């Protein structure tokens, strides 16, 4: 892992006492490797290393007696800062009901996260409504209904109707039945599928969500930037949810997605169960990525 490899690099350099810029380059190369192995995007790594190099070749590091530790500290600080603060709150509308849309690639964890958010909101005293806008995947509506039943949260569905119509009807339903938060589960889709991306834009225009969450699998590799950039350009995301962090994926996609969209990572998924949703902590993510 990075700390043991850096220790090895530092051990080789220790005989030199102080560090030269060339020595710092060697340390940065190790960090670059660690970030790439952690699935941080190639270009994001390049920009990040350049940023770190500027600080790491400053006088206070080069004249330090423990330059390696200084560099790791700088990397950790910069990484944590880049990944933003901890903002585990959904953006609400000034007028109820607030609409939250879950979007993302196939299999990322949207439906499961919708359930988890429902449970969290219910515990906070809200009255959420699930909306089944995935009319394509076999038994997608059934999946959401099972979760709704499990959590005692109502599920709005019109079967295989146009998702834009379903969203509009659900919004009206929420107003009549006093649900203050509408959680729209949408079908997984490729960011390069024009028709399906337009569907999301149409749903957005129809019900004006206060929050659009991009759900991203923590094991996503280099492609994370393409996906995030595309979804953000077309929908102006409110935030990101990173799922399946209960595995051993380093989660470099977190840095890539944040770097390319600037949008906050709000929550993380840490289990398949409905209580498996936690606030995102940038410092914990930083040390996980560095390995």
């Amino acid at each position, binding site marked *: 892992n990075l700390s043991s490899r850096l220790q090895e690099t530092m051990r080789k350099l220790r005989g030199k006492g102080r560090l030269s810029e060339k020595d710092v380059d060697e340390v940065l190369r190790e960090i670059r490797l660690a970030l790439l*192995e952690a699935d941080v995007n190639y270009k994001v790594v390049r920009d990040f290393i350049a940023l770190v190099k500027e600080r790491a070749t400053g006088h206070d590091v080069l004249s330090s007696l423990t330059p390696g530790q200084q560099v790791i500290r700088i990397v950790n600080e910069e990484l944590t800062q880049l990944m933003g603060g901890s903002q585990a709150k959904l953006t609400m509308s000034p007028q109820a009901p607030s609409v939250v849309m879950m979007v993302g690639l*196939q*299999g990322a964890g949207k439906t499961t996260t919708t359930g988890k958010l429902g449970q969290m909101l219910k515990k906070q005293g809200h009255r959420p409504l699930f909306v089944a806008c995935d009319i394509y995947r076999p*038994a*997608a509506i059934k999946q959401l209904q099972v979760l709704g039943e499990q959590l005692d949260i109502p599920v709005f569905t019109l079967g295989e109707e146009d998702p834009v119509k379903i969203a509009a009807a659900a919004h009206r339903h929420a107003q009549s039945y006093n649900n203050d938060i509408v959680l729209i589960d949408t079908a997984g889709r490729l960011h390069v599928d024009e028709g399906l991306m337009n569907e999301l834009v149409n749903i957005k225009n129809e019900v004006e969500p206060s929050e659009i969450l991009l759900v991203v699998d923590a094991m996503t590799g*280099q*492609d994370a930037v393409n*996906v995030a950039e595309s979804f953000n350009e077309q929908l102006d995301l409110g935030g990101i949810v990173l799922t*399946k962090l209960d*595995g051993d994926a380093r989660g470099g996609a977190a840095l890539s997605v944040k770097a390319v969209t600037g949008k906050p990572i709000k929550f993380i998924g840490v289990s398949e169960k409905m209580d498996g949703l936690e606030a995102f902590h940038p410092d914990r993510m930083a040390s996980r990525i560095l390995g």
Partner: protein
Amino acid sequence: IMTGRKVDEELFEDLEEVLIQADCGVETTLFLVDQLREKARSEKITESTALKEILVDEIISLMDGNADTLKTPQDKPYVIMVVGVNGAGKTTTIGKLAHRFKQENAKVILGAGDTFRAGAIEQLAIWAERTGVELISHQEGSDPAAVAYDAVNAAKARGSDVLILDTAGRLQTKVNLMSELSKVHRVCVRELGRELDEVLLVVDATTGQNALSQGKLFQEAVPLTGIALTKLDGTAKGGIVLALANELKIPVKLVGVGEQYEDLQDFDPKLFATTLFG
């Protein structure tokens, strides 16, 4: 990137960038590019188009013996067990396989081995209906080993040609879930009286380096015979299969290129290698 350029260090750096962004991983990328740099020097190659041919061949040979088709059916029933992490595309791939075998006039039966996730059994039931094949299922929450037991015995009793067993998605680091998988596999082998014909690991093409951990730990739990790489219709290149071939020697057999039952292809190393630079 590879046409009409001088062969110099900048070209090799650009190639590294392409391969890393294709999720080939640092180790595999450096291995391929170093080999290429050596060939360029020894064969005095100065123009990039010739070099591209060599790199494609390098990648094909890396995948060679690591690409394969599904095992040819011998004894009935031909049994396929499908495993992988959550959301990879297992259930959908089974639907596609059911369709493929049905088109070949095989009598197909599916086993609803995911007894855990909401709507999992219903999802597979719809695929069974769509493809016109039978389904063996129990209640949600029942023991997956019991479903496996029933599925194998039903396939034998009904003279099915093919049995495809679905399993619940699981992260490879969950020890109890991995031992559950081993148990399901053992039950299948015992009831079948021989090894399974295929144990396929379904891997999402958007996966990064974690795919290596997936390959390694699933291999420890069950004897994998191949990989089905899904969602290659997106923009991810699926370069992780190079590392899976290089380090774990698990052959890629199938590729998923969409969500409909006809969106399944045999893995083509040459097409894969050339598309890596697309």
